[in-house]
């Protein structure tokens, strides 16, 4: 789903969550190639210029998430949990919970990943990043953006950026680590299940308004 369409719909859903008009929702999808620049991005983090990136077929968007540049594209499972953290939010714990979801999901297919608390939020294998995590809060309580797990992403796209501003680090994918093709389709139900476990939530039916905005690939 196109990035800007999803981004706008996600913000709208978060507004409705703030007004208690929608429940906590998980959105899982894939994007066509896009580089997103967070608030802490610097020009030197982009190896290609924005024009070069577009010439390669990727969009470039500057958004309200924290962090620097990252890439989304086919073969990468992107998740936007829109969750109300309550009046006394613990954002650090929420991020750790997202990391936990990804670590458990990877373990489910036999791939061992870990955090790098000293370096950055995200999920890694040794020095290489497998999953980027970037979150923003709306009105200090509802979560926006989320995580992006490289399943069988074409990793050459990451050559266009210094991913997340980490110069000496690489990226990898579940497929590389598992030495077989791990697809978004395979990981989606695993991630959904692990997220429900870690956040102690139960999935209900997708509310009609959410389903309309996020057709056809939305899962809530």
């Amino acid at each position, binding site marked *: 789903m196109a990035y800007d369409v999803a981004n706008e719909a996600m913000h709208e859903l978060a507004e409705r969550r703030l007004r208690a008009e929608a429940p906590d929702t998980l959105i899982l999808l894939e994007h066509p190639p896009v580089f997103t620049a967070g608030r802490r991005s610097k020009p030197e983090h982009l190896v290609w210029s924005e024009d070069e990136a577009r010439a390669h077929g990727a969009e470039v968007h500057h958004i309200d998430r924290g962090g620097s540049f990252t890439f989304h594209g086919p073969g990468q499972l992107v998740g936007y949990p829109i969750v109300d953290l309550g009046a006394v939010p613990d954002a650090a714990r929420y991020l750790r919970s997202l990391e936990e979801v990804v670590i458990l999901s990877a373990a489910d297919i036999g791939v061992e990943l870990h955090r790098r608390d000293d370096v950055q939020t995200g999920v890694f294998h040794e020095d290489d990043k497998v999953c980027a995590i970037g979150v923003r809060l709306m*009105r200090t309580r509802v979560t926006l953006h989320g995580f992006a797990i490289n399943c069988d992403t074409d990793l050459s796209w990451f050559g266009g950026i210094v991913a997340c501003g980490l110069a000496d680090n690489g990226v990898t994918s579940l497929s590389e680590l598992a030495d077989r093709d791990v697809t978004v389709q395979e990981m989606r139900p695993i991630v959904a299940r692990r997220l429900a476990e870690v956040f102690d939530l139960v999935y209900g039916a997708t509310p009609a308004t959410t389903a309309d905005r996020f057709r056809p690939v939305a899962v809530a």
Partner: protein
Amino acid sequence: MTTIQMPQLGETIIEGTILRWLKQEGERIERDEPLFEISTDKVDTEVPSPVSGVVTKILVPEGATVAVKTDIAEIQDDDAGSPEAGTAVSAPEPGTAVSAPEAADAAPSPAAATPAPIAASAAATAPGPDRGPRSQILSPLVRRLAAEHGLDLAAIAGTGTGGRITKRDVEAAVAGSSAAPLSTAAPMNAVAVAAPALAPIPSPTVAGAGETVEPMSHIRKAIAQHMVGSLQTSARAWTMVEVNVDHLVKLRTRSKDAFSERHGVKLTYLPLITRATAEALLAFPRVNGEIRGEDLVTRRFVNMGIAVSYDQGLIVPVIRGVDAMNVPGIARAIADLAERARSHQLKPDEVSGATFTITNPGPYGSLLSLPIINQPNAGILSIDGIQKRPVVIDDAIAIRSMVYISMSWDHRIVDGELATRFLARVKQNLETWDFAEDLGV
């Protein structure tokens, strides 16, 4: 004057950077409007203002990084009587100072229950600074207005961000009802009720021979006031339908073991009926609505109140957004809320915000009931006992499990045809839906 501090967004997040001030010194800001944007090492966010007023001082400039809880700005809020008045102290109101005696954990003795001379301004104040029944920070103006009109803040629907009660909500509540609408249940750290409805008791009751006298508990009084208030507020009418639930009884018998093994809770009829009712409420939004002031409010979501009986009496926990939940989800929510109700662990915002209510006396043995509406809902559904009865099917007599489902409804909001069509829809849902698939077993 209110001081704004750098918020703490997590236990381990110890500082934040001001990215942008969205208002400058001298500019006006409304409550819940974003005031500034911050960045921490974990997340960014915009931060809303807790009060309405004028930004008088910005103490920390854009780009600066400060520790959490550092003072960063001052706002002269609208409700402070003078610049010297601090946040916790407003213009003299006897009610404001009364926090300790109103705490719900002490059952007040009859003589001291409600000091009559200051009944009018005995503010509905929970212990702690300016916190209303849903743990929302209320402005002193809102509390004073509510106290002046003898209103229980727990019963006023909030239309501010996150359900906060605004001045307009209090005014609407004043305009909309003659009797003081009072909460169904007082949660543990509850709101004491300004009680014009209960006359001050001049002397303690003396037990006669064979009698036992105990003072009414805080919660008992709250229930009493709500019930009387409800009957005085709503134009209550009542309609009933009979539903053939034979297939549901059979479904439950064959699926209940697998269900409880899979989902960890027992399968009762209540989640099935709740699901069927939620759909009907979305199809007939008036029945899911309420009156505010002179307006009719309807919504596209359902927060279902489920009446639970427990040692203190009656409490109505709320399942928010039940329209988006499936049967296992609803079953788990009901089991969780009921258990925490009985162990006195519900939070204030779990017993408020219902858009409709269901009561289920059936398991205790009733055939038919005439429930009292849980204000400010438009209706309350009663599910009574399921019984095998002889019924006529295709001109022959058959034995089927049947149940009477009835609804007390407010004729100010809903009329007979709508109420009946709504109940017919609930009946149709229960009789025709294939619940087997939804059970997830």
